[in-house]
């Protein structure tokens, strides 16, 4: 409890971090050392060979906004596929910076950068490294043990919000980024990158842009690209389409046959067709108090009797789903999933 006890602890952490950065080439101890950005680091302007991207329907992380970038090494490319996350070449770096705008209604008022996560495809496998931004917003430092930050902002409705934001530890990255116990990216797939982005010369389809850069081979004609389904934009898909894609990105990284939640028998990938495996009238296995005294994962027509909804609404770490990465409930997504279950028969 005393300060003098903190010193050795901090010392141990520092030494450990130092030894980590000495032992391997990556990770570097500061984000700036990767040269991923040009100009002021906090402006997050990508360097020449770094491409920004945006997912159609992203993972919810306590309303944090995210900036995403990818660096694919010179002379290498991805081969297109329309069903799974892209198979990125070795040396690829995926970059994701989490931030909160000061005022969600007015981006000009500035933002607080919280953390930047790097997913690096090293010689043997993918590795994840979390960097935490300093208070001055001049640099982000590698921190393997995770952290809790207080964040404050004005939300879309003009309400002031303040809450804890959890930065996962390095092991927890793999809690989600896990395919058959191998680290893996989750987001960048054809169905998530089929939407437009403005790279400075007006809006372009991202997949097409990547192909033009020579980074993506074998893309089909524009008419055969997957639809850009945005979970909260009704014109982009049916309730079923949008709900399934939302569950896919928010749940299926664990809840799929080769993911860490495969012991539950609940599989929420958007390609899953077996209604039992999606949770329809499926009894829980090891949900414990996560069941909320309810009998089925999804009770068609009855969101209030569906464990899925109960766990999305909970903020209790022993109950809530996903297990990590949020301390708030995603009200808008809950409304979508409720509607989806309600319209089932």
């Amino acid at each position, binding site marked *: 409890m005393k300060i003098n006890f903190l010193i050795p602890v901090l010392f141990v952490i520092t030494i450990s971090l130092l030894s980590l950065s000495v032992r391997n080439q990556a990770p570097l101890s500061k984000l700036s050392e990767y040269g991923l950005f040009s100009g002021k680091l906090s402006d997050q302007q990508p360097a020449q060979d770094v491409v920004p991207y945006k997912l159609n329907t992203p993972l919810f992380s306590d309303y944090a906004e995210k900036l995403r970038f990818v660096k694919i090494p010179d002379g290498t490319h991805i081969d297109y596929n329309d069903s799974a996350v892209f198979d990125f070449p070795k040396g690829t770096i995926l970059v994701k910076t989490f931030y909160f705008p000061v005022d969600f209604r007015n981006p000009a008022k500035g933002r607080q950068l919280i953390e930047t996560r790097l997913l690096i495809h090293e010689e043997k496998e993918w590795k994840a490294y979390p960097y935490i931004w300093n208070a001055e917003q001049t640099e982000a430092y590698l921190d393997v043990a995770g952290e809790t930050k207080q964040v404050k902002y004005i939300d879309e409705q003009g309400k002031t919000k303040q809450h804890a934001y959890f930065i996962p530890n390095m092991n927890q990255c793999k809690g989600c980024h896990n395919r058959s*116990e191998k680290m893996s990216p989750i987001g960048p797939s054809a169905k998530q990158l089929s939407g437009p982005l403005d790279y400075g010369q007006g809006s372009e389809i991202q997949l097409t842009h990547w192909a033009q850069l020579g980074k993506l081979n074998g893309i089909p004609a524009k008419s055969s690209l997957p639809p850009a389904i945005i979970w909260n934009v009704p014109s982009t898909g049916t309730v079923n389409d949008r709900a399934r894609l939302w569950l896919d990105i928010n749940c299926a990284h664990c809840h799929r046959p080769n993911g860490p939640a495969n012991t539950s028998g609940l599989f929420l990938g958007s390609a899953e067709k077996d209604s039992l495996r999606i949770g329809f009238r499926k009894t829980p296995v090891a949900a*414990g108090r996560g069941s909320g*005294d309810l009998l089925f994962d999804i009770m068609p027509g009855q969101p209030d009797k569906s*464990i899925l909804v109960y766990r999305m609404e909970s903020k209790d770490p022993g109950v809530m789903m996903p297990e*990590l990465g949020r301390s708030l409930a995603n009200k808008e997504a809950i409304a979508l999933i409720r509607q989806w279950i309600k319209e089932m028969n």
Partner: protein
Amino acid sequence: MRCTLSILLCFIISIVSAQTEIRKSIQSRFIMAEDGETIQLDEGTFSIDATLSMEGKKNIIIKGKGLDKTILSFKNQTTGAEGIRISNCNNVVMEDMTIQDAKGDCIKAMNVTDITFRRVKAAWSGKLSSKNGSYAIYPVSCERVLIENCIARGASDAGIYVGQSKTIIVRNNQAFENVAGIEIENSLNADVYGNEAYNNTGGILVFDLPDLQLKKGGYCRVYDNRIRENNQLNFAPKGNIVGKVPQGTGILLLAANNVEIFRNEIINNRTVGTGIISYYITENPIKDSIYYPYPTAIYIHDNNYARKHEKATMHGRMGKLFRFKLKFGKDVPHIIYDGIPDEKLILTNGKYPPESRICIKNNKGSSYANIDAANNFKKISRDITEADCTHVAQSEVKAWDK
């Protein structure tokens, strides 16, 4: 006043940050550990505010200064679904410490080959509540699991729960005041012996459930255990299969196959000393076409049974069943078979083939009933001669080198 307040505030802040620093310090050691390292934790009570996780390591010992000497308390946990999580490792030993009051499971090990828990206490310390976490010690999808000399208490599901794993030894543990004391679920080759299971809702459970990756467990021995006074009111949240276990259950075999139960002391469990039931009795729908819902090849012998002359539980569906259908009064049989057979197995003589039968032999102080649940409990039979047969002994799970 203001002065005191600010001192208090400083104090609180320093506690909170100290918690974070301890957690970060232990977490960093879990992350940095070299293969073959022993991570020694100090004596003392440490308040931990988030899951501690170990991932992708080999040959690690996580060692405390003793059960109830090194205490990691997760009472103030704010994030993470378990206290300790060990995943995708090879040969991890956790010993000599107490893990308590996690928000979800106390200790979860997943996809670990060679996992040992020794002299570990995993418990919820307060009164028994459905708000307690599900599992105290929870290896799942593991191979070669050894749990010995551990204590599990307060779990709203199972104290010691081995799920979807292979090659398991659970010995000389104490499991008390859980919904299920010890549960082996969809697991293959387990030896459960020398344990004390008491004051749980159910003492020792061997279950096979549908819809899972590891479809069929079995080849399990439960022997030399003391299973007594498991009369705790069921405090599991609904929806969970253990929520259906009646108060007063000693041993329950649910759709389990190739299980041998012998030399146990099964004492004063008021509702069912040993139950042998199919999944149908749960009244849950079965949609898994590969799942086998019947118990077969069960051998219960040389156990010692005793119970007080009292009524079975009045609680839950099972309570209703005892009151309105079975009507045993205070003369409750020690061993109950639900009498829902796999019709496909029945031979022309009306019996299972010898290798599939339910055999009950040479138990002391026991009585028996087949409750004929298949025919709405019409022909309840207390004639144990229908189960008068033997099986060859299940083979021993050989201890591996530790």
